[in-house]
């Protein structure tokens, strides 16, 4: 695409395939009477607005950015006005960090905005950079409870209104239960781990052979033990992580979860290794709990009802888990006498779990992509 202008000199417009125009990324989490915010603004844009390159060498260093922290914060805050109904909220920058987006380094401003009273209608007046760059846009992510909406601020639409639906505790709690159920169903790693542990529950080991268990109550007892141990363990770590008491790197958690599946599968192939399955369930349940917590953090926990949403999410996980057990147990109990159960279901199933787990473990631990997702 080519065009030219001739007045005094010849001017050609630039091709459309240049890099990205100026954007900022604004996240607002509305929480009852205040807003927690994060605002990513390109350092190049700040340089145009407040001048960051103090030594004029064409490079922006962390030192130069840090020195201008006050100017950066003041400039940014003067360009964003949040108000709840008619009250203007008072905003304070908490910290300034750095992040990298596709078009370069960004200053990340974390801020807190106090609106002195419950927010029913949030008005966001966004005026960043429009006077310098008329094609600048602000990309907003607004979260309230577990619900996220997006909007784009531009020169033409700098002010936007958001109605903050007052979610009742009940609907919020239902939402988290729902998320919990879906997470255990869609997060195959938890299901596979649990199933791998449950596969031998309808059998008993005698003289190095698998025999069908004779009584239903003992099978049930076995299953209850395992499921309870798993539940207690993951509830414990889920709570600790969600309340921010303990934090583990997600790569470690995710790969240990994969390792736990491998171990559960191997335990079925080499039963002498594991006589007390409930202990395995408990031990690795601790790690699975961290995995659940990561999901919960992604959903955005409303601090106003932290405990309620935590409990609701956990209840959801247990419901999802019970449904799986309820579907598995009678079926396994019915076919436990068949020759195929120990061979096909137990051995084959365990091998399948181990294979999948091995792939996941390698991918997660070594940060590889073995198969296209």
């Amino acid at each position, binding site marked *: *695409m*080519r*065009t*030219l*202008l*001739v007045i005094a*000199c*010849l*001017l*050609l*417009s*630039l*091709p*459309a*395939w*240049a*890099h*990205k*125009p*100026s*954007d900022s990324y604004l996240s607002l989490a509305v929480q009852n009477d205040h807003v927690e915010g994060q605002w990513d603004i390109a350092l*190049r844009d700040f*340089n*145009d607005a407040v001048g960051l*390159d103090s030594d*004029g*060498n*064409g*490079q*922006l*260093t*962390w*030192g130069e950015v840090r020195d201008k922290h006050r100017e950066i914060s003041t400039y940014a805050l003067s360009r964003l006005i949040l108000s709840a109904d008619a009250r203007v909220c008072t905003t304070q920058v908490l*910290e300034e*960090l*750095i*992040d990298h*987006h*596709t*078009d*370069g*380094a960004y200053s*990340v401003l974390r801020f807190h905005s106090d609106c002195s009273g419950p927010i029913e209608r949030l008005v966001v007046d966004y005026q960043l950079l*429009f006077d*310098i*760059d*008329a*094609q600048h*846009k602000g*990309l907003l992510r607004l979260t309230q409870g577990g619900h996220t909406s997006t909007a*784009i601020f531009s020169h033409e639409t700098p002010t936007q209104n958001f109605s903050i639906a007052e979610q009742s505790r009940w609907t919020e709690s239902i939402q988290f239960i729902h998320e919990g159920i879906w997470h255990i169903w869609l997060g195959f790693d938890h299901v596979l781990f649990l199933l791998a542990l449950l596969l031998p529950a309808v059998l008993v080991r005698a003289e190095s052979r698998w025999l069908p268990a004779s009584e239903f109550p003992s099978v049930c007892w076995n299953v209850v033990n395992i499921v309870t141990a798993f539940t207690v363990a993951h509830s414990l770590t889920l709570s600790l992580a969600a309340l921010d008491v303990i934090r583990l*790197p997600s*790569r*470690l958690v995710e790969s240990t979860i994969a*390792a736990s599946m491998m*171990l559960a599968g191997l335990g079925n192939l*080499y039963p002498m290794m594991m006589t007390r399955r409930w202990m395995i369930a408990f031990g690795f349940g601790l790690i699975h709990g961290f995995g659940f917590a990561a999901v919960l953090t992604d959903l955005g926990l409303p601090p106003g009802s932290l405990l309620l949403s935590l409990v609701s999410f956990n209840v959801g996980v247990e419901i999802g888990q019970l449904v799986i057990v309820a579907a598995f147990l009678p079926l396994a109990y019915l076919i436990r006498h068949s020759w195929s159960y120990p061979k096909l279901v137990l051995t084959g199933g365990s091998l399948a779990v181990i294979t999948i787990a091995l792939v996941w473990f390698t991918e997660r*631990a*070594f*940060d590889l992509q073995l198969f296209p997702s």
Partner: protein
Amino acid sequence: MIQLIIVTCVIGWYLLTQGGSASPEPYRPTDDAQVLERLSFKASDPLARELNALRSDLQKNPRNLKSAVRLAARYIEQGRSEGDPRFLGQAQAVLSSWWNEPTPPPAALLLRATIRQNAHEFNEALADLDQVLAAQPTNAQAWLTKASILQVQARYDEARRACQRLARLTASHVLFGCLGDLAGVTGQSAKSRELLQQVLADENLTGRERIWIATILAETAARTGAIREAEVSFSEAFKVGIKDQYLLGACADFLLDQHRYQDVISLLQSETRADGLLLRLALAEQALALPSFKSHTAELVARFAASRERGTSVHAREEARFTLALLHDAKQALPLAQVNWNVQREPADARILLESAFAAGNRTAGQPVLDWMKANRVEDFQLRQLATQFQEARF
């Protein structure tokens, strides 16, 4: 077996705790000397000084149209060099006092037309130009811009009439550049090349003018298969010594067609900021099976996603090409190429649509290009080859 498990676990844990993966989280740098960003120019560069002087002029007198137009034009030119659309947004901001007036002064309208044309708002840009021409029927710049937009829209007869209005309004080389560009895509390449060769011989051309004419000549020659002549013209354009993103892209495309991948890499390896150039670099890396191909492709995926997030789609041509040639997904590429074809119709747009339709095995989707080629007697041997394959293929 147990030992094996233990060994695996130990190695796994070790690697995890040593974890070398980049954290996607915002962080607080620990070293003050860490360079976070490189700007496109230093404060001491003549350009920076010039822009600063123009800016402070304007600050003193924000309603001064003359300073505003000078600054905005300078920003647009800088955008052309750097391929950075921020400069266009800045040009628009400079013109904001006049931008929303019902009848802005012609000088502001002209720049607004250029900025709108860049955003692919072709009809709005043409309306601006007609408004300029109603007030100033002898405004050469408006006729020239109008001609080039009409050419992009494949409205060749109207474009030719607009070019012809340049006679007697401006230097002859501008008229010849305008007509030559048009002739090159409408079946008169020989005439076009002859004309443009003569223009290039003129010693009085400015640098930008020389790049402009030499690039048209090189592209026209390349399309007709005159490889040597194309090469000479490209080097003539580079000799001027002004950085020009369009020229870099056009030359890279020429080299890619010649399978000169190593040359593409030498030309573009430091040009990873502009998406269109990164795309061409990744294409060359793919052909040479270089490891950097993977990371550059991932980078492009992220950039196109970021672009979509902002809700604009001026990148349809590049995204279609990326989707087809790097992601090898004809099904996704075709609709992008079609959307693009509805907006702009240059040989490159025709090619990506025909290639996508071919790869997707969709005969009707390629038909508009065949019709366009026939109606305008398009001389482009790459396109013709492709069209023949397309017509002979059994889908």
